[in-house]
């Protein structure tokens, strides 16, 4: 008797994310259908993409659903499970078995599937077909690994009651899955509305989860993403000095499609970005993995700058050599986007020493830094000189806060 696994559903509870996977799509145009793994179609891990939110699933039993087919067309029952083939070598015999069992526990904790294993259960077959049966995941460990992109391989096995007595399992297929682990459910503009093109895009998760790898808090994740985006300069993007600081990816909406094209080596909308682009990229990728940031502006007409290092530049200048200041500036911002709230600026480095108005300068990328006022050394006094035309003209503009739609 040969049994095959035919399909696996990870996001099997519509509208839920507490015990199953999130709703996701590949990109603006391409949806991901459920079941996420289908026999004969899903050969590589990239063919079976799933995502889980750490916070929403914390402490819960995660379940999947799977369907099977047998060459035996009679009605019967078998027990089915899936193990991690990497951490499950063939069982040894003798006195060394206990030691190997102990070492295996350590090995699983370090290197095992983030989704763990699939707990054995009885599956009934009628005319050689099973229904979709719900399985529990055993020992998933993504709450410990933090944000990231992981690969899970399962060796599916079955045995009859008679084989159970002999402790013997028969291998079925191995299935491979690419797993995106998010901090929390994505926040606006991303959503969890079935069919929406604002569902998390796996093409964006590829970068967001990699940039924030290992993060377990929102601040840690947003900081890692801000640093990663600033470090894209000058190889992939740089500040738009020639164009006068024009928006190339965030005019109206966030053209994530073109930005992803740029990241993967294509032209996209070109190499130039401005502060609105950086604020939008930082907050959109951070929110994708569960942070909660806005894009919001400061200034209003014009304010003077201290020396800064724009993205992609190694030169300390008051913006593009001779600008002297900005007509406005935009950053990723927490909370109500007021001067008491923290900002993440992926567009420029400020001077992090005690006197940001004069050289020498100590590079500091502003992450989770209070915007501040003109009396205490926070972001505002690092960005602008303490003058009426500098700090005095660089006020938080919370009425401008926005989360641009993803296109």
């Amino acid at each position, binding site marked *: 008797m040969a049994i095959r696994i035919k399909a696996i559903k990870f996001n099997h509870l519509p509208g839920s994310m507490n015990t199953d996977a999130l709703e996701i799509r590949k990109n603006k145009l391409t949806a991901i259908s459920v079941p996420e793994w289908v026999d004969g179609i899903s050969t590589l891990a990239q063919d079976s993409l799933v995502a889980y939110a750490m916070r929403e699933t914390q402490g819960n039993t995660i379940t999947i659903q799977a369907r099977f087919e047998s060459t035996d067309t009679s009605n019967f029952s078998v027990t089915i499970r899936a193990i991690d083939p990497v951490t499950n070598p063939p069982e040894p015999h003798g006195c060394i078995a206990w030691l190997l069992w102990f070492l295996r526990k350590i090995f699983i904790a370090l290197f095992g599937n983030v989704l763990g294993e699939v707990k054995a259960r009885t599956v009934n077959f009628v005319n050689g077909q099973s229904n979709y049966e719900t399985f529990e995941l055993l020992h998933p460990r993504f709450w410990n690994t933090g944000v990231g992109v992981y690969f899970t391989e399962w060796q599916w096995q079955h045995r009859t009651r008679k084989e159970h007595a002999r402790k013997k399992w028969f291998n079925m297929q191995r299935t491979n899955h690419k797993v995106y682990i998010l901090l929390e459910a994505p926040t606006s503009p991303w959503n969890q509305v079935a069919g929406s093109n604002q569902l998390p895009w796996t093409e964006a998760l590829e970068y967001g989860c990699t940039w924030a790898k290992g993060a377990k808090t929102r601040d840690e994740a947003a900081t890692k993403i801000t640093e990663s985006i600033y470090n894209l300069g000058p190889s992939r993007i740089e500040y738009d000095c020639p164009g006068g*600081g024009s928006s190339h990816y965030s005019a109206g*909406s966030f053209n994530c499609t073109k930005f992803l094209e740029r990241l993967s080596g294509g032209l996209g909308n070109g190499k130039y970005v401005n502060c609105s682009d950086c604020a939008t990229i930082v907050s959109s990728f951070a929110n994708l993995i569960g942070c909660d940031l806005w894009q919001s502006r400061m200034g209003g007409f014009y304010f003077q700058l201290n020396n800064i290092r724009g993205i992609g530049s190694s030169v300390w200048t008051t913006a593009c050599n001779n600008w002297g200041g900005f007509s406005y500036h935009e950053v990723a911002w927490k909370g109500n986007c007021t001067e008491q709230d923290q900002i993440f600026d992926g567009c420029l480095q400020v001077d992090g020493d005690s006197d940001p108005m004069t050289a020498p300068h100590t590079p500091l990328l502003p992450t989770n830094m209070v915007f501040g006022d003109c009396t205490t050394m926070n972001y505002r006094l690092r960005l602008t000189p303490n003058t009426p035309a500098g700090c005095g003209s660089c006020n938080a503009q919370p009425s401008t806060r926005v989360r641009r739609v993803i296109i």
Partner: protein
Amino acid sequence: MATYDIDSWANQTKEGKNIFIWDFLLNGSEFSGWKLYDVQVETSDSLQKKVEYYCQNSENKAEAVKIDVIQNPSWQAAQKTLLDLVKDHMAKELPPFSASTKRSLGDVAYTGTTGIHHVLFSRANIVVVLNTIGDKDIDVAKFAEQLDGMFTSKPESSNAKFSPDIYVFELVGNKSDQRQRVRFEVVDPVQNVWLKFFCTHGQFLQDSDGLSWLPGNGDGQITLVVTNSRGFSSSKTINTMR
């Protein structure tokens, strides 16, 4: 003090007040040696329509240009759009195109702060934004000037075999009305078409019902030029009387 003075823009606008561009399109053959490799249409609930064209030099892949063409319901709306766009730059003030190049462009035009890698201009109801997006920065002025020429030129009808047909072109409504509806029906069996309306006085205004003409003083003419995506044109002129 406003950095950009939209009132002075209106005062300096002459030709563009008498032109209306409808559903402008590029097919890629307009720029010799360049290939159109992507077109993105941005949908909107408003009458504004934005199309982004991506062109690459066929001989040198490092050279590429993105051209955003934004259709607005009037020349005034176009200048308001342009104002919003120039104010959205982080530099305090962009230099006028004429200051950067010693040449004129559109009704109102600006460039980036260094080189001519970024140009914005309005002509009639259209705003165009050009950006170099390739690995090699290039001067985009020639693309801007060619586009402006396409907006303002009034070509004669081409060979009838390949030209679009203008079935209906008339003004509807009382001659004494402040506004007369422009009714038109054009057909090209194979190609997409775009339209240009020229008037000797007055101006055009688009609303949710279509296009209207707001007469100026005296008698005059309104001309419709229809161009298909292969570049063949037809035109028709009607006389207006007050």
